[in-house]
């Protein structure tokens, strides 16, 4: 198990050493996000604006228009949920000649239900929907620390506005160190022919477990890590639809507008097949101690067990 925030901090410092234009901003959560480490390394490239997320976003925009590459971070609930106007009008909309949006990277922690004890007020289950509907934004959800370490330099290198949502809790590794990450490219973690599970973030591990147990029952289940929700990998999804005939999606997000919706939108226009979206069924979360988070996720059906169940059900609906 490893911690995404620690990896984020390490990756930032490494990337910051290579590129002097990288600056980091926080909003009184810099110890939690571990971005304060960057501040110790580069004190004049680090800004803590206090509990002022709107300000955080817009100052980042001003730095970006001046050639800096700001990484602005706090908890998920306080960025898309709170500062969507600034994200839209100050980052996504302003487009210097020949470019799309400003070069700001919003990297948040504490996405989804797995935030746990802080409760429903702090469990951001709408951010994928909010962020992917804003033109020019890229939306990533890494499944493990390897993904984090690969995506930070990728974001720093590629011009444009990015949103990346990390999990609060430590996560097991699902990728190998040699895994290649590309913007807009999904990753096939297990091949399979009977069904596909498309997952992102903490549900990727669950999908792998589900695939494993389905294998015991003789069902060949493909597993995709759809870490790049926008742009989404249309070709890997079309291929999965064509070759496996049905798709389960799983995310710790409202099923409305989330990764599952993005997959459904894509597949329905390329190769329509039955789809079942696992996720929060248009309701809010609630508190759960760290050792109870699995219960909270279970309440919303976000488990490998439910994935297995849904795979079996959907196979009968194949066209």
């Amino acid at each position, binding site marked *: 198990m490893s911690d995404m925030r620690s990896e984020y901090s390490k990756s930032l410092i490494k990337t910051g050493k290579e590129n002097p234009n990288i*600056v980091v901003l926080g909003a009184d959560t810099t110890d939690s996000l571990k971005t304060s480490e960057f501040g110790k390394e580069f004190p*004049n*490239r680090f*800004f803590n*604006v*206090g509990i*002022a997320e*709107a*300000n955080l*976003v*817009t*100052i*980042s*925009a*001003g*730095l*970006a*228009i*001046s*050639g*800096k590459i*700001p990484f602005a971070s706090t908890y998920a609930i306080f960025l898309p949920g709170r500062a969507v*106007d*600034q994200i839209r*009008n*100050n980052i996504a*909309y*302003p*487009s*210097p*000649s020949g470019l799309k949006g400003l070069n700001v990277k919003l990297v948040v922690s504490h996405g989804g239900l797995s935030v746990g004890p802080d409760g429903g007020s702090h469990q951001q289950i709408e951010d994928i929907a909010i962020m992917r509907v804003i033109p020019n934004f890229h939306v990533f959800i890494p499944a493990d620390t390897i993904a984090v370490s690969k995506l930070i330099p990728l974001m720093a290198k590629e011009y444009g506005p990015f949103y990346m949502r990390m999990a609060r809790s430590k996560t097991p590794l699902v990728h190998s160190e040699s895994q290649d990450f590309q913007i807009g490219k999904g990753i096939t973690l297990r091949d399979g022919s009977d069904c596909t599970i498309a997952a992102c973030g903490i549900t990727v591990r669950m999908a792998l477990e589900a695939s494993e147990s389905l294998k015991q029952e003789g069902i060949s289940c493909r597993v995709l890590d759809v870490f790049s929700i926008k742009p989404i990998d249309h070709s890997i999804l079309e291929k999965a639809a064509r070759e496996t005939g049905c798709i389960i999606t799983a995310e710790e997000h409202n099923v409305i507008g989330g990764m599952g919706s993005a997959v459904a939108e894509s597949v329905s226009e390329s190769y329509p097949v039955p789809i079942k979206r696992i996720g929060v069924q248009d309701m809010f979360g609630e508190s759960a101690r760290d050792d109870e988070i699995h219960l909270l996720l279970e309440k919303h059906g976000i488990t490998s067990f439910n994935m297995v169940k849904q795979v079996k059900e959907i196979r009968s609906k194949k066209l």
Partner: protein
Amino acid sequence: MTTINVGLNYYHIKKNVLRARKLVIQSIDSAGSGHPGGSFSMAEILGCLFNKHLNFNPENPQWEDRDRLVLSKGHAAPGLFSNMAVVGYFPESEVKTLRKFGSRLQGHPDLKCPGVEFCGGSLGTGLSYSIGIALAAKIDSKKHHVYTIIGDGESDEGQIWEAAMTAAKYKVDNLTVFLDRNFIQQDSYTEKIMPLDEQLESDDFSEMWKDASRWKTGDKWRSFGWNVIEIDGHRIEQIDAALAKANATKGVPTIIISRTIKGKSIEHMENNPQWHGKSPDSDIVPMINLELDSQFMIAPSIIAGDMSNLENEIKRCVSGRADYIHLDVMDGKFVPAKTFEHNKIKELRPLTIIPFDTHLMINEPVKYVKDYIDAGSDIITVHAEVNDESSFGEIHDLLKQHQVSVGLAINPDTELPEWSYKFLSSIDQLIIMSVIPGKSGQKYIDETHAKMARLNPVLKEHHFSGYIEADGGINLENIGSVFADGARVFVGGGAIIGQQDVRTAIRDFRNEVLNSRRRILLTKANEFGGSELVDKWIKLHVIGEKQEQIKKIAHEAGYL
């Protein structure tokens, strides 16, 4: 030509502010919608920035070392675009594409238009954005400056205050903010919707304007750790001086709280919340343009006062809110009398920032003009009688080089010499003497009216775009007709400085000119659209006593 920052460049700024205001009306009229009120309240601020303080290059809008101008109150886009057109970012005719499909001139400022630094529109964000730019400049040790204009309505937004704290924390002294304090937001007066100063109980918000003890906005910003400068945001010399002070202040950001009038320059728009965001009817547009062309200034002449205490006369002009201070320099040769020389002007200069309108009634002015520049004159006028093309050309170039406005004067018995025609398009001020210079207390020479009538077509033919200053025997009885002749600056001798109460005397002067202007505009309305347009125009004046006053004039003139 290289310019040396000595004079105020007063008329240059003033003329471009007028051009920009006309373009605002043109663009909004063409668009059929837009925000004239807030474009006009910040017109002088933008004029001073674009025409004097801002470093930029329209040929290379992305020049790395340019100063940045962030219009946070983005709905005043027509004001920004008009100034950008005036200084050459794009042809003036392009303002007619405002808000139209395919135009670079979006309804709110947008990076689509080269030279625009910030996509405004959603209020309250421009200050944070400016801090980002200022911080980036600090990281890179760049010397450019960030200027930001925020509105008082948008100060309702919490993000303004988030940014206010942040700017102080990071000591962004490379940031100067103008608060366009026009007291009006979309719904109504700011002090009714969300008071920045004090809540307004009555409907007469002029009580806020008059009573400085009720202004709390400066205290707010001071308590946030800012350097606060409070000015009248329509007075070019105050904006200029505030910018100089702001640039000299290190370690803290500066905010220049500029008290302004929404819709400034057009009587029916001034202080009227209705003109926050709508376009004037097309039949009113020519009336607006005429009114814009009819702005006027009052310049008391201090030699009409106590010559042994000119310092006190200056103070009286300041408290009387004179537009300029007219300084008559007489050498005892060009005119029999002698007044003072440049040394005296230099002595008086620190007493006020009100522009010095120096009128040189001296022989061989070309020999001495530099002394009067160095003494701190903002406008220098020399006489045609003691110049020829060559000497005036020398004076003209020297003044322009030092950002001092150029004036030419003619005596009552002098006609405008032919050699001056080539200079007319760039002369800033033309003094038409209406008394024999050198003696005070003379009566206005009535023949001057006929002279003005002769002169106007000549000036038009040679593209004179400056201001005519009437000098000599101007009083409450004749000022209206002198204005009607085309004069826009009025030197007041005995009729102002000779009075006990200079402030009241200046106010009376202004009221006389105002009524003369209204009479002229009514005549024009009648000419353009008969009594129907007269009636329509009068009814636009809904704030204060204006409507009744204008109605009275219309009745007297038989237009109603």
